[in-house]
């Protein structure tokens, strides 16, 4: 297969990596080398092999659905680059124009808690 500039840009977007033009050139070359490196195993006949999902045979383990102590909020927030009112602080998501506007509002209005989940659900094509 051919590695195109578009493919590298697409993968960088999926990877959430804002790569430079220079990095894109290097990564394209790297992809080409990797594809050449794995060519031999691609020719291997694996039609009858079940890929298996786990590295060891294991069964699901259930535990009683009872609340247990976990990391307290202050501890969980301690490493956050920005926090306020007991939440992780991120730029406004809902109501932000195209997702790109809105500064780093801190606390209170304009703060979106749990921004991680909301952000991950965004389609990069739409929000850019």
């Amino acid at each position, binding site marked *: 297969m051919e590695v195109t500039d578009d493919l590298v840009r697409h993968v960088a977007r999926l990877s959430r990596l804002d790569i430079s033009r220079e990095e894109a050139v290097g990564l394209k070359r790297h992809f080409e080398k990797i594809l050449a490196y794995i060519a031999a195993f691609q020719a291997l006949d694996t039609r009858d092999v*079940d890929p298996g999902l786990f590295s060891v045979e294991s069964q699901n383990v259930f535990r009683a659905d009872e609340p247990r102590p976990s990391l307290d909020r202050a501890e969980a927030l301690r490493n*956050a680059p920005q926090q306020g009112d007991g939440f992780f602080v*991120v730029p406004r998501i809902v109501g932000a124009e195209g997702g790109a506007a809105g500064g780093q509002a801190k606390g209170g209005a304009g703060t979106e808690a749990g921004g991680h989940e909301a952000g991950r659900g965004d389609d990069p094509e739409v929000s850019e």
Partner: protein
Amino acid sequence: MSPGVLETAAAVRGRKVKAAESVAEAIGQIRRVDPQLHAVSQVREDEARRAADDLDRRIARGEDPGPLAGVAFTAKDNICTRWGTTTAGSKILESYRAPYDATVVERLARAGAICVAKTNMDEFGMGSSTENSATVGPTRNPWRTTHVPGGSSGGAAALAAATRGMIHLGSDTGGSIRQPAACCGVTGIKPSYGRVSRYGLLAFASSLDQIGVLEADARECAAALSAMAGKDPMDSTSADVPVPDYVAGLEKGARGLRLGVPKEYFPEGVDPEVEARVREGIDVLRRLGVDVREVSLPHTRHANPTYVLISAAEASSNLARYDGVHYGYRSSEAGSVLEVYARSRAEAFGPEVKRRIMVGTFVLSAGYYDAFYNKACKVRKLIRRDFEAAFREVDAVVSPTSPVTAFPIGDKIDDPLKLYAVDVLTVPANLATVPGVSFPCGFTRAGLPVGMQLYGRPFEDGTILRLAHAFQEATDHHRKAPPVRA
């Protein structure tokens, strides 16, 4: 010369030496060699001394201080400790302070051992030279400081060679304990997958990662493994398999064990001096009564490409958590949430980490999943079947650990594929979930150590330790000291 791990523990338990003295001695050793090696990211002075004083008070009260009483240990910088930072050698976690101790750290502490330092590594374990550390910079090999110590547990390996009497925790996803052990002339074990809890190990590739140790000899590895192994409710992939006393098990000796020499493990590209030393090592085992025979692991040549894809795929998923929101570095240039993710990651991940995330994302993406990731999983199955077949004939398999000895700093860093090739003989253990141990079997004319590797059946870690121990009772390669030595 400082005493070894078991001698230190015996002396502290027997009240001949105080834990405080043992810890001060260990920190002194690290302080003496580190200016030349750059092996540690942090040294734990006051807290370690307090922990030692605590232990000494418990001993004075007549309490059992544990089998590893007063033994100092170091943790690779991707293993969580409540004290200090846990950076994985990355700028993205430069100031990260873990809110909990990894299970291995907790278990060693419960056994009486005391953490004294964190060791340098390739960023997130991605590398075979410890040149990819964004926090400390390259670690140097105590045998020749112009050369790499191997990687990614290069800090641990360099310290294991240059100091005495400590336990050095490493992690191994494709050879990151065994290859640096070989490069630095020490003994390193990657236990069976599931033997040791991974709770508190910053994940690189979860189906391959395993925590182990780098030591002066197989006996020290056995002592550490006995304290660390076993089921942990915090890691559902840790196995509920009984943990034997690995040290006692060493006394069973090597006679009568069957050892397979796979012809595929001496491929072109193995340095002739490395091959010669390993073949001499096999002769030593034969003279000890080991039944040596040829075996075949036909899919070996596909192991490294399989590893490159599977480890990258899992890394791309595991490293998605570094998003500039919950912990770690956040770009000051970001106006939207997406920019927070994409800019923080672009600014704080190193080039090799970005390459692996990109390759991993690619092989998991729509349209390419079947041709690449799924295919790699199928080939992994074939590699496993090779091992299952071989282990019906033999109790262990032997090979060189690495095709080459330690190489000069800067030699391979510009060509990722050249660096990946160093892993070709170690990745099969991770893909097949089997235990692997590397130990020194001689030196090249240039004076660099050569490592020999043994693979065993899953959860028969004791068997390969027995073989390594028998070898070390008959040889003295593991007792040679490098020029940089505390």
